């Protein structure tokens, strides 16, 4: 049935989607939901997906997976004393991926009918066959366990869709008033974005996984304007997004925090401009996570390193794998970088990835040496000779039902000081003359992830181990290996904080991924600092 016929036949299928005479229960997309919700396998969806896999394998696929997603988004935006926008969206459909003679094919349909998913499965198989005909180096798939029927739900206290738009708006408008009370603050905008994805994946390797993911992204930008309009400064990026539920918003968006951010916006307006040159940097974890994301997260993607992203995101300085694995020195001996998809609240945390590989953690950098990449089932064999690992690390992800899954970033963390639980004060004591940077702001890095320039939301001068006056116009430029090898001190577990990005882009057509990064506070010696006002 064609799409327009389906639409015209809308009345005929009212009440549910037909499948072999059975009906998918009509689900209210945004209706009231319970505070703590969980994923369960819908038996009718399960059957739909298994039919798709059967159709692909019958058409010649040696492996196939089928995935339904129902993606809900809600956003509320405010400025000063009023709501500037409130909206929700729901998108639902099925994507089928087929593997034929070492090549992939993909097709997707928004129609949740047996006929449509079977057609998508056959199209995906035909595309894979066409690609296989011109493929020079067929891909092989790493082994994977059969997990049977499994379910996983992101840990949360409050499902963000169980909280009314009224309650969310009320919180934001009250916080706006707190910011506007601070003398010098002229404008404030705030908002919260909520996401919930119900994903059910079936694979021809014997796994059916129903999973529920949540993300919340609260934000606020406070702008102070000089009374003579000669300058303005904004304090934004105040709270990082998270894979927890709405409780994360309530815990982090508080009047006490807003007072601090408002003070910082006004303080930056009166701050002294920085003197350009080499400085020691004390990077707060609310800032450092993004430096990790850009200079460690992206270059350790195996498809990038091998040229698969050359036209868009770029390649990687960490190549070829044979020359850098187990030998390239990323940083000092106390530098350990872990990749994982298992931490509660991590935005890349899952039960199973989008090809049925169970979530795990593994080291990327051990004692300062680069030891592994991020991989999928199709990529593991490319480096198994050097890593001794035949299996995927479980990094397959698609941003929606209509996107083909490919390698995406897991949560990647800088481990805190394992020997000494240093506090922020202890870490500052190691700096005689430096700049303390907090919050993410401008970030730019080249297509091989060497040359970067970052700036923070707020900065202070550090003198004799203490934070002193505020500084503005601060940005630092460095080359990735030089920067990480200049890391001199890292804080202990007590300084560890998890930040992250809701919208990390990769691939063509572009897909968005959400990922978290945890790290302690850290000191870097003699980094090139620019004055961006000159």
């Amino acid at each position, binding site marked *: 049935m064609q799409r327009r016929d389906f639409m015209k036949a809308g009345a005929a299928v009212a009440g549910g989607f037909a499948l072999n005479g059975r009906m998918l229960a009509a689900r209210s997309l945004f209706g009231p939901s319970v505070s703590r919700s969980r994923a369960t396998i819908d038996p009718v969806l399960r059957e739909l997906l298994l039919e798709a896999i059967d159709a692909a394998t019958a058409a010649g696929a040696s492996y196939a997976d089928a995935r339904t997603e129902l993606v809900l988004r809600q956003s509320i935006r405010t400025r000063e004393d009023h709501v500037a926008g409130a909206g929700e969206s729901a998108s639902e459909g099925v994507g089928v991926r087929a593997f034929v003679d070492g090549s992939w094919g993909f097709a997707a349909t*928004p129609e949740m009918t047996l006929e449509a998913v079977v057609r998508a499965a056959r199209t995906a198989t035909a595309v894979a066959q066409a690609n296989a005909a011109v493929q020079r180096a067929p891909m092989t798939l790493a082994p994977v366990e059969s997990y049977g029927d499994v379910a996983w739900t992101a840990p949360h206290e409050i499902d963000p869709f169980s909280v009314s738009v009224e309650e969310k708006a009320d919180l934001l*408008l009250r916080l706006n008033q707190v910011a506007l009370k601070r003398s010098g603050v*002229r404008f404030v905008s705030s908002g919260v974005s909520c996401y919930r994805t119900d994903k059910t994946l079936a694979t021809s390797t014997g796994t059916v996984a129903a999973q529920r993911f949540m993300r919340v992204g609260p934000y606020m930008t406070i702008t102070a304007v000089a009374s003579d309009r000669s300058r303005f400064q904004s304090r934004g990026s105040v709270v990082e997004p998270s894979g927890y539920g709405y409780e994360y918003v309530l815990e982090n968006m508080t009047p006490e925090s807003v007072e601090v951010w408002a003070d910082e916006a006004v303080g930056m307006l009166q701050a002294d401009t920085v003197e350009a040159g080499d400085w020691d940097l004390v990077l707060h974890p609310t800032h450092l996570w993004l430096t990790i994301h850009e200079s460690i997260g992206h270059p350790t993607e195996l498809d990038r390193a091998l040229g698969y992203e050359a036209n868009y995101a770029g390649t990687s300085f960490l190549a070829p794998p044979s020359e850098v694995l187990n030998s390239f020195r990323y940083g000092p001996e106390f530098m350990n970088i872990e990749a994982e998809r298992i931490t509660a609240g991590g935005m890349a945390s899952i039960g199973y990835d989008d090809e049925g590989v169970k979530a795990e953690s593994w080291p990327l950098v051990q004692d300062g040496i680069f030891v592994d990449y991020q991989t999928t089932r199709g990529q593991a064999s490319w480096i198994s000779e050097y890593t001794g690992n035949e299996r995927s690390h479980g990094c397959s992800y698609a941003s929606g039902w209509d996107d083909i899954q490919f390698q995406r970033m897991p949560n990647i963390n800088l481990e805190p000081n394992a020997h000494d639980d240093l506090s922020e004060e202890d870490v500052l004591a190691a700096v005689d003359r430096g700049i303390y940077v907090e919050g993410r702001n401008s970030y730019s890095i080249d297509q091989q992830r060497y040359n970067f320039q970052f700036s923070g939301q707020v900065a202070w001068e550090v003198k004799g181990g203490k934070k002193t006056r505020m500084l503005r116009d601060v*940005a630092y430029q460095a080359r990735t290996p030089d920067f990480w090898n200049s890391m001199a001190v890292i804080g202990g577990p007590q300084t560890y904080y998890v930040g992250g990005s809701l919208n990390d882009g990769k691939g063509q057509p572009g897909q968005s991924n959400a990922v978290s990064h945890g790290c302690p506070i850290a000191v870097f010696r003699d980094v090139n600092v620019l004055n961006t006002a000159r």
Partner: protein
Amino acid sequence: MNRSDLLTETEARELASRILALSTADETEVSVGSTWSGNTRSAVNRITTAGEVENTSISVTARFDRRQASVSTNRLDEEGLRAAVDDAASQARLTPENPELMPPLGPQSYAESRGFFEPTASLGPDARGRVAADAIRVATGKGDLTAAGFLTASAGAAAIANSRGMFAYHRSTSVDYELTVRTADGTGSGWAGVAHRDWSQLDIPTMHARAADRALHSREPTSVDPGNYPVVFTAAAMSDILGLLAGSLNARSADEGRSAFSAAGAGGTKVGEKLLDEKFQLESDPVGLGSPPYQGDGMPLERQVWFRDGVLEQLSYDRYWAQQQGAEPTGFAGSLRMGGGDATLEDLIAGLDRGLFVTRLWYIRRIDPRTILYTGLTRDGVFWVENGEIVRPVHNFRWNDSPLTAFASIEALGRPERVSSSREVPPARLSSFHFSTVSEAV
């Protein structure tokens, strides 16, 4: 699945009417849209993925007095539509008032904007695959080169309607194709890209040859010290800088004192001041570029001049801010057309005594909104030019600069090119651009 499934005007009107009829809100706005897109991606001299995706979705905005909320969905059965309408209404009732909401518009009349081209709408997987195969053939035929490309075509039909009788419908297509060619030794990389609404307007063989030639000539670059240099930018690079300027033309930010176009002191803006070189001309031309002749609420979009002879003519007003300030609403500064001259890219390079030719910019991020200062990098082909001739490839740079200084230093402009389906920009020669550090990335 094929493009004949795109909503016709009659179908769009019928679907929108059905949704409006379901609503009990004081005011209701609806948008409906169906899209098809097909893409073929290549890397390491092989086709890596290809896909065909279509979708139809609707959005409903319900309003009670000054309370408003929107819901969108791709569930189009009767139950899905009803759920969206009911949910928009219940959310709107719970949403606090927005005093800035403007009343919905009644019926409007629109200029005809031709944006749909059959050659693009029928660009199927086989044709796309042949283009990718040709790029790989060109690359491998010129030596030890590796091609990575992305060709995407899309077609869409969209309509908006509201409970006061406003209705607008537009169909459009777009095609974007870019190709990166790298040398096997990893020391050289070249890029070229083309875009249009009409696939038949694109010169693919020339584009393939350009990307491959830039790769070959960029092999084994040497360093040039960072600093200020005269520069020739391709239209693609110019477009990136232009976008930064266009994104800063909001009147409200300027009036509120938090824009590069705010006048210091008591208030006001820099409208009327000559801020850029007199060769700089910038307008929005939605109809000329085949874009929708309306914005989301149905307001007709007309040609708007932003800069004339380097003078800031006006800033952009939405309906609310225009009413507050007694100005005419203009809509966003989109569908941009920057004026140019007759010179070719080669002519611009021939006029450069000593300086750089830059193919492409990358990873551009804002540093300071007060001066529209941004940072970014060059990539895929930077060359040192002397006496009008390219003499050698050089390493990439990080740059820190602003469109306000770049476009104040225009020496010459080339013939405008379509850099995306809805933007036309010329290549240019600028007397100075600030390169802050060398990037060894290739």
